[in-house]
């Protein structure tokens, strides 16, 4: 007899209720705030599923950074006075949409309830990858990301680069090379500046710490990088820092450093360890930390640049 099942059911109901609120809320701002709360609650669900690494990522990216992205987008739309969005579907379409959604959710619930037992698992292979000569890591998820499925992770960094390029390219033609618009147009409040001055250095330290312990404990390049990105955005919101020009060489080098270092080490593995993305035994752990350090840099720079949006042309660098 334990209270844990009751807490689980309460948490599940709360998550679904907050999700329903983000769909039902009248205005965009309320809906975005609901989404941030939803991201934090979902992080607790991930902890209950024994996934602290995902919980960290979900809290930082799913809740925090996405929240800033959507709030900033709403403010920019208000500034453009472009709020008319056309009429929604009529009552009949809504009922059909509701029925369709219920059908899909029901089918998915049926699938979840009838998953095969015993469940298929790649955990033995991941354990071998984590403990093997190619890695030597205590955190199996970091081993999967950097060693067992290294190619996926490298391509995922390239997806981030493509997204940044896509965002930059929707800016006006004559703005190319200039800085994105600031996250907040108005002069920041004193309390915001104080918060950014105290929180940003501590948060940056915690971000580096989460990256560093990621080899053996929950944490890693994505979580640490996302936290560093959030701290940079806090400083940008307080106008202590401005977004850099997108033509800046330092910015571009930081963006490509993660995938470039990853790919170079992977190619070197072809010669030194006998196969693409293989790490030579004995050097594996320092090499993995070396790759991850540049991935942290890339993630920490890419996420704020995505939130900042396309180059603006009006704001001075």
């Amino acid at each position, binding site marked *: 007899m334990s209270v844990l099942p009751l807490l689980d059911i309460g948490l599940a109901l709360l998550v679904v209720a907050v999700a329903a609120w983000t769909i039902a809320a009248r205005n965009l701002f309320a809906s975005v705030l609901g989404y941030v709360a939803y991201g934090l609650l*979902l992080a607790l669900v991930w902890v209950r*599923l024994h996934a602290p690494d995902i919980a960290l990522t979900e809290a930082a990216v799913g809740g925090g950074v996405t929240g800033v992205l*959507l709030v900033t987008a709403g403010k920019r*739309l208000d500034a453009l006075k472009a709020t008319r969005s056309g*009429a929604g579907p009529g009552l009949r379409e809504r009922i059909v949409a509701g029925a369709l959604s219920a059908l899909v959710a029901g089918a998915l619930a049926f699938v979840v309830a009838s998953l095969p037992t015993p*469940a298929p698992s790649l955990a033995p292979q991941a354990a071998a990858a984590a403990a093997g000569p190619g890695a030597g890591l205590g955190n*199996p998820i970091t081993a999967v990301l950097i060693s*067992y499925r290294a190619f996926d992770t490298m391509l995922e960094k390239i997806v981030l680069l493509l997204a940044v390029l896509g965002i930059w390219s929707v800016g006006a033609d004559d703005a190319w090379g200039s800085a994105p618009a600031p996250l907040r147009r108005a002069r920041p409040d004193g309390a915001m500046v104080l918060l950014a001055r105290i929180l940003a250095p501590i948060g940056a330290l915690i971000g580096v710490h989460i990256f560093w312990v990621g080899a053996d404990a929950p944490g890693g390049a994505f979580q640490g990088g996302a936290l560093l990105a959030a701290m940079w955005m806090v400083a940008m919101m307080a106008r202590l820092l401005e977004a850099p020009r997108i033509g800046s060489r330092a910015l571009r080098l930081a963006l490509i450093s993660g995938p470039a270092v990853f790919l170079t080490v992977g190619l070197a593995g072809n010669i030194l360890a006998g196969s693409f993305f293989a790490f030579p035994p004995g050097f594996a752990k320092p090499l993995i930390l070396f790759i991850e350090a540049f991935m942290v840099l890339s993630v920490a720079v890419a996420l704020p640049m995505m*939130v900042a949006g396309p180059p603006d042309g009006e704001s001075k660098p």
Partner: protein
Amino acid sequence: MNPSLLAGLVGAALVGLGLYGLIAHPHPLRKLLAFNLVGSGVFLVFGVVARRGAAAGYAFDPVPQAMVITGIVVAFAASALAVALILRLAVAGGDVSLDPQASGRRDDGEAE
């Protein structure tokens, strides 16, 4: 009811809610938010698969969990690209309607 089945049902409910919001909301930012709900529901179902695949001394299967981590970051990148496109639509057309008939000024805006 065990926690992983419960989380799976939550995932299914989130997919349903998000799908409804995606269809029913006319505003593109609200559609984007709803789409993110669908995404996190799918991730949750993936997390249930990871939890059920506990083996080799771990309480979870690390492979699906690692894929969810990259998935969350990629979903954010896609959302950010969508936001940039929506804002561009608003600059070009003067509104954020996705209905081609509702906006008359769109054609002039595109010709710049």
